[in-house]
């Protein structure tokens, strides 16, 4: 007799209001008590599919069955009532509440107008934490807790609701390797208790290590479902990317030249007043790509903001071409030869409600070549410039007067790269340059960074994508809690060693 899957999704189609077809008829099924990996690149539709399963989104078409019974979720409450809970990539915690109140929110257990009684909840949570052997401070506002702990609160929140199916969206993105191991131990324990787990990831190793079966999504379609024991990383990678060759970047050897950017004993504070960058020192030379690797949130953002004039450093100096630029405003830095591809495309790199042309001259608006007379913009010239960028960088855009939000993510990112390169810089700072960008655009952008390096520009690359750093960098610094654990050449270290450094072990200590 064939067992009934706990989750069965049939023919799921999702069209977003803006017309994007995120899912094109997906069939997906999960067995009771397994850890099921959901693998795919950025934009493959993994999160959308799971948001539908957890009641956050409504499918445009398709049916969902839980334990063989058709269900229709109007909201996450319906999914929770059916024992399905999801831990989102961006945590959904009320930051000013403590863990306890975050967890009991929505099932306080009394009448709406009676006094909240937390004793029972505290009891249950203590037992849960003991069983799983992980601890969370229950009475501290969650905004004061590190992300790893916040994630545990999210998991507890779901277990407190006695879910049978736990969905985790890229849970390891914010964790150190050690925390990842701890998380996996918890997930295995949950599986042993009979829970079903759906694990969304784009990391092959993790999927290979943890899951029982894997479903691979590509561009809103299912490529296939395989038993992990019968799969290889190569097979999964092929299914995920859709071609055998993973991105190959041609990078001829090159002797670096003079130092362009020098960072000396830099201290930068984060938003909460903590020391985000601690006494950092390095230099980026002409004709070199210097990569900064590390788990996100270890001070990379603050470092880049300090260098690009968006955040005032506490101590130390930043020197561009022998000129002290510490604490200078962005305009001055651009005039001094800096270009900056920011990590947050839609919130910093572009003004989505402005046109392609307006975005193409953002940060260049005062340059003579776009002026009719002093202080005025010659839109004719600006448009010709934009058309030139569109041609040169093969940007797909409905027109120079179209709002930039009508472009796809990849083309938006290419527009940013084009604009920054058109500043004719000596130093390019590229922060997560290919995040959320389609494969073709990624390849284009990576090759372009190498081209800039070959032309003798200095490139500072920050990326959470380790492959990207390894492929592009001439030298790389591995950042952990505001410090470099080591500055090494990619070919001199193994992936394991990098992983150790990302987890906070210094390079010198590695071989002892």
């Amino acid at each position, binding site marked *: 007799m064939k067992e009934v899957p706990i989750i069965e999704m049939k023919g799921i189609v999702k069209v977003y209001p803006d017309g994007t077809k995120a899912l094109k008829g997906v069939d997906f099924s999960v067995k009771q008590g397994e850890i099921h990996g959901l693998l795919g690149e950025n934009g493959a539709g993994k999160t959308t599919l799971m948001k539908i399963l957890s009641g*956050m989104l409504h499918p445009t078409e398709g049916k969902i069955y839980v334990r063989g019974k058709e269900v229709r979720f109007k909201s996450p409450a*319906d999914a*929770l009532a059916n024992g399905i809970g999801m831990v989102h990539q961006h945590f959904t915690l009320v930051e000013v509440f403590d863990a306890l109140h975050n967890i009991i929110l929505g099932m306080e257990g009394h009448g709406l107008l009676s006094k909240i009684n937390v004793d029972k909840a505290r009891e249950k949570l203590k037992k849960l934490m003991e069983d799983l052997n992980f601890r969370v401070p229950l009475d501290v506002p969650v905004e004061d807790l590190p992300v790893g702990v916040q994630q545990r609160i999210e998991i507890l*929140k779901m277990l407190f609701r006695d879910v049978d199916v736990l969905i985790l969206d890229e849970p390891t993105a914010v964790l150190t390797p050690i925390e990842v191991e701890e998380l996996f131990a918890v997930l295995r324990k949950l599986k042993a208790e009979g829970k079903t787990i759906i694990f969304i990831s784009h990391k092959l190793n993790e999927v290979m290590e943890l899951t029982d079966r894997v479903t691979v999504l590509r561009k809103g379609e299912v490529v296939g479902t395989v038993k992990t024991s019968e799969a290889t990383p190569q097979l999964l990678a092929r299914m995920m990317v859709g071609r055998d060759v993973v991105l190959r970047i041609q990078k001829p050897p090159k002797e670096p030249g003079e130092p362009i950017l020098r960072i000396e004993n830099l201290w930068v504070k984060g938003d909460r007043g903590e020391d985000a960058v601690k006494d950092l020192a390095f230099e980026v030379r002409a004709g070199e790509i210097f990569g900064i690797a590390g788990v996100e949130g270890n001070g990379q953002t603050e470092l880049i903001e300090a260098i690009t004039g968006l955040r005032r450093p506490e101590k130390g100096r930043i020197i561009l071409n022998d000129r002290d630029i510490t604490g200078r405003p962005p305009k001055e830095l651009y005039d001094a030869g800096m270009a900056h591809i920011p990590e947050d495309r839609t919130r910093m790199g572009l003004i989505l409600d402005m046109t392609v042309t307006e975005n193409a001259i953002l940060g260049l608006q005062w340059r003579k070549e776009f002026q009719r007379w002093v202080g005025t913009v010659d839109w004719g010239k600006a448009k010709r410039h934009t058309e030139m960028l569109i041609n040169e960088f093969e940007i797909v855009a409905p027109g120079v007067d179209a709002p930039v939000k009508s472009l796809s993510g990849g083309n938006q990112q290419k527009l940013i790269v084009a604009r920054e390169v058109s500043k004719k810089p000596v130093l390019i700072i590229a922060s997560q340059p290919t995040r959320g960008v389609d494969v073709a655009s990624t390849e284009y952008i990576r090759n372009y960074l190498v081209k800039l390096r070959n032309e003798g520009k200095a490139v500072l690359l920050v990326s959470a994508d380790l492959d990207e750093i390894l492929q592009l960098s001439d030298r790389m610094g591995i950042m952990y809690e505001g410090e470099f654990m080591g500055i090494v050449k990619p070919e001199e270290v193994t992936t394991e060693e990098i992983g150790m450094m990302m987890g906070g072990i210094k390079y010198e200590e590695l071989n002892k």
Partner: protein
Amino acid sequence: MDIGSIISIIVTSLMAMVPIVLTSVGAVWSERAGVVSIGYEGVLLMSAFFGAIVAELTGSGVMGLLGGIATGIVFGMLHGVLTVYLKGNHVIPGIGINLLALGVVPFGILAYWGTAGQHQVTVTLWSWQTKYGKISPMIPVTIAIAIITWWVLFKTPLGLRVRAVGENPEAADALGINVEKYRFWSTVYGHALAGLGGAYMSVAWLGVVQKAMSAGRGFIALANMVFSGWNPLVALIGGWLFGFFDALATWLAPLHIVPGQFILMLPYIMTLIIVAGIIGKARPPKWDGRPYKRE
């Protein structure tokens, strides 16, 4: 200043406190749920008008107050639909509501009572006449409303959910809390309290309907809300302070020590100074004034 004057200033300030505190507490609740409104000024004015009509039609001051609440509910629902369900801008509807009130009330006074600019309300709420001035039962009611609202907001599941919805609607949504429902009814509650405050002005306190009788109280209430750090209890005390200044200005005016205009200016200058000094500490709810969309 003798003891009698002091008592009468306090009595006057308690009377003046009522509309400000009710509106502030309502605004605190609504903003805790994440909905901003600047239409309270118009709601005060219109509920003063409609409250008086209801009081005269039914012959009951209490019914007049209920009429004010109903007026508040209508505009709260309007604001709620526009901001919560249609995800519109939170400030613009208030500008429209205030403009509307400036038309509806003078037009209504003329069209309904046939008098220009002002109408003496014939049915008012009972109040205790003392030699220090009249004392309305609405004073203890207002204090009770502020305290109960505080208790519900910070001690009960309902309050927890309202605050969650204003701080992080995504989190609340993911746990099955209907964000739109909580936001909508919070908006309605906020405007209903302002409606009660407006009807109090015409039916219980001043006994008249005038075309400019709200006199900026809807806006003072917003300043007081910020001053309170979005806390109904502090808003109660703050509202009394604003009432106290109001009373002091009225008391000092005939003495001609300084031009009357300068005394009347005082509460506004104080508000500005207080708001400027305190804003660093007072943190608005994180999603205050931002529509929440799931997709």
